[in-house]
């Protein structure tokens, strides 16, 4: 850690991990409700648990991105953060607002929450992933705005690196696209169209820029490869992400009202969306092969490799599986979508945040070369347990989805099973998914446990040729 103000990243990372644990608890509740339908009913109905599960994910990833940014930007721009105090204030505002929102979901009826937060005067609630009360949405806008101001002022007064430029573009895009969360017309078809401006253009657009920037930063630090080489890769990767991903939004416009040309545009461009993820895999492994040093933080390196592979599988391969319009006609809104969603979010965004945490947190704790060997081994156990569990969650959901499509979608009306009759037929896969989810939870416990193991890695770095000065 070269600048004292980078330390404000720490509370962001800690809080992110706490929310991550909460997300998984609610994931298990949901998984059980799929097979034991009345589990926790009426105390925590499915829709409430799901809202908590998805909103915790979004919020903890935002905490992770912010922590990553606060850590990276001062070091990249070679100057202290503009205002560590502002970063601390915004942390508490976001943490309190986020916690209150989640408690609101759990403690009062959703309709009552809408009433209490005056949703009728500015209705934005009740849309998937955008369930937050309008006032929370303004809170997020305020926090992200203040955060952007803080890091922009930092980035502008110091060295301009490609990592910073790409990261800033991604974050500005995140903030601007969030504005569409406030647009909720009475026409459902229009509502849905612009809803995707937040959802798709975040996860298949600007978030990829954030991911690319974090990955590039960590690879510069861990491999010592010349910044010029890494920055060139980064530009090409994020270029591909936007070139394919923006028109790729069209794969969501197939069946919600927009005209037929989107069937072609959405299919062709989203079929190319795996490319940037594939390039990330090649990029990471290439840089590691060409490394100038063997960094003692092996766990961080594992996360960096893992995130590219899992993002490629989850977002790339599982996305491609059902993105072509003739396939999506059958699979749209089935468990195949759920399978893709789980692995894509885990691979791309959960793992990239855990990558930067694995790299940065030991440094902030006074362990510049990483955690002790024991702690790293435990962390890697956490990595493998969570990652393999997620692979199985995805496979079981895919099997459930294929059967669901086979029973409910493919036969003609009259022969097709009803939704609930189909669900009963595929319950075995939901059970297996729940078991895989329990293993994921075990992996998370192991992972979190690794933070409590004392000791640091030894400073010896095996150098393979001259490492660059600023890495």
């Amino acid at each position: 850690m070269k600048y004292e103000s980078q330390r404000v990243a720490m509370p962001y990372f800690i809080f992110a991990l706490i929310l991550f644990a909460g997300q998984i608890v609610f994931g298990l509740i949901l998984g059980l409700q799929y097979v034991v339908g009345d589990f926790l009913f009426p105390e925590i109905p499915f829709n409430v648990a799901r809202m908590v599960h998805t909103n915790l994910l979004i919020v903890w990833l935002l905490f992770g991105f912010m922590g990553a940014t606060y850590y990276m930007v001062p070091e990249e721009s070679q100057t202290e953060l503009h205002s560590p105090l502002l970063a601390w204030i915004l942390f508490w505002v976001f943490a309190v607002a986020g916690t209150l929102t989640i408690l609101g979901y759990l403690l009062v009826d959703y309709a009552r929450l809408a009433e209490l937060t005056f949703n009728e005067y500015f209705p934005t609630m009740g849309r998937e992933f955008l369930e937050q009360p309008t006032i929370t949405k303004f809170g997020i806008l305020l926090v992200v705005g203040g955060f952007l101001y803080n890091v922009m002022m930092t980035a502008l007064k110091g060295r301009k690196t490609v990592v910073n430029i790409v990261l800033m573009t991604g974050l500005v895009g995140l903030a601007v696209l969030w504005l569409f969360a406030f647009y909720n017309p009475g026409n459902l078809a229009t509502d849905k169209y612009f809803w995707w401006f937040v959802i798709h253009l975040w996860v298949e657009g600007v978030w990829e820029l954030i991911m690319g920037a974090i990955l590039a930063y960590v690879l510069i630090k861990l491999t010592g490869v010349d910044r010029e080489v890494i920055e060139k890769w980064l530009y090409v990767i994020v270029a591909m992400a936007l070139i394919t991903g923006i028109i790729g939004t069209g794969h969501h416009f197939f069946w919600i009202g927009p005209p037929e040309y989107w069937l072609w545009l959405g299919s062709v461009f989203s079929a190319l969306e795996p490319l940037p993820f594939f390039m990330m895999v090649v990029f990471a492994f290439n840089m590691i092969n060409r490394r100038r040093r063997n960094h003692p933080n092996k766990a961080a390196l594992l996360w960096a490799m893992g995130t590219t592979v899992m993002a490629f599988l989850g977002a790339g391969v599982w996305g491609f599986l059902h993105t072509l319009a003739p396939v999506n006609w059958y699979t749209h809104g089935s468990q195949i979508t759920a399978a893709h969603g789980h692995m894509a979010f885990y691979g791309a965004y959960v793992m990239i945040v855990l990558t930067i945490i694995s790299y940065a947190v030991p440094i902030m704790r006074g362990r510049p070369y990483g955690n002790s060997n024991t702690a790293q081994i435990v962390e890697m156990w956490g990595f493998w347990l969570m990652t393999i569990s997620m692979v199985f969650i995805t496979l079981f959901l895919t099997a459930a989805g294929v059967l669901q499509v086979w029973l409910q979608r493919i036969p003609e009306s009259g022969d097709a099973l009803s939704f609930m009759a189909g669900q009963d037929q595929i319950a075995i896969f939901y059970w297996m998914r729940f078991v895989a989810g329990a293993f994921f939870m075990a992996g998370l416990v192991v992972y979190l446990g690794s933070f409590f193991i004392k000791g640091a890695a030894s400073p010896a770095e095996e150098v393979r040729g001259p490492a660059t000065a600023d890495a």
Partner: protein
Amino acid sequence: MAERFTKSMARNIYLGGSVFFILLFLALTLDTQVRAMPERDNRDQLTDQVVRGKHLWEDNNCVGCHSIMGEGAYFAPELGNVFDRRGGGDTEVFKSYMKAWMNAMPTNVPGRRQMPNFNLTDDEIEDLAAFLEWTSKIDDNDWPPNIEG
């Protein structure tokens, strides 16, 4: 990557490519929203009642269990075409079906998925029914493949 491929070339692909595709996306959005959608979303039938129904749909977080036009949660049946599935395409039939259904919830059958009772008035249930009927008539390229949704 070959040395001939410089960082500034990479940057230009990033900037040029993004700007081009953002502009293309905005142009397509304009065409979709201004030219195409009025023909496809039957907005001439978008009454106040339908809008009230949409707000009820949102205020009770229906999308937290159900999908509508394939989007939402996958815990409970698709409702984009429920007007055809349960109402047989008839407004009055659908309204009475909706009243019977909403008031029968929850079933409390042990082990089965439960839908809460949202304590809606008859008028509110009619608003919700109007919203679902209107939704079922959006031209969505003939999705879903069959009546089961």
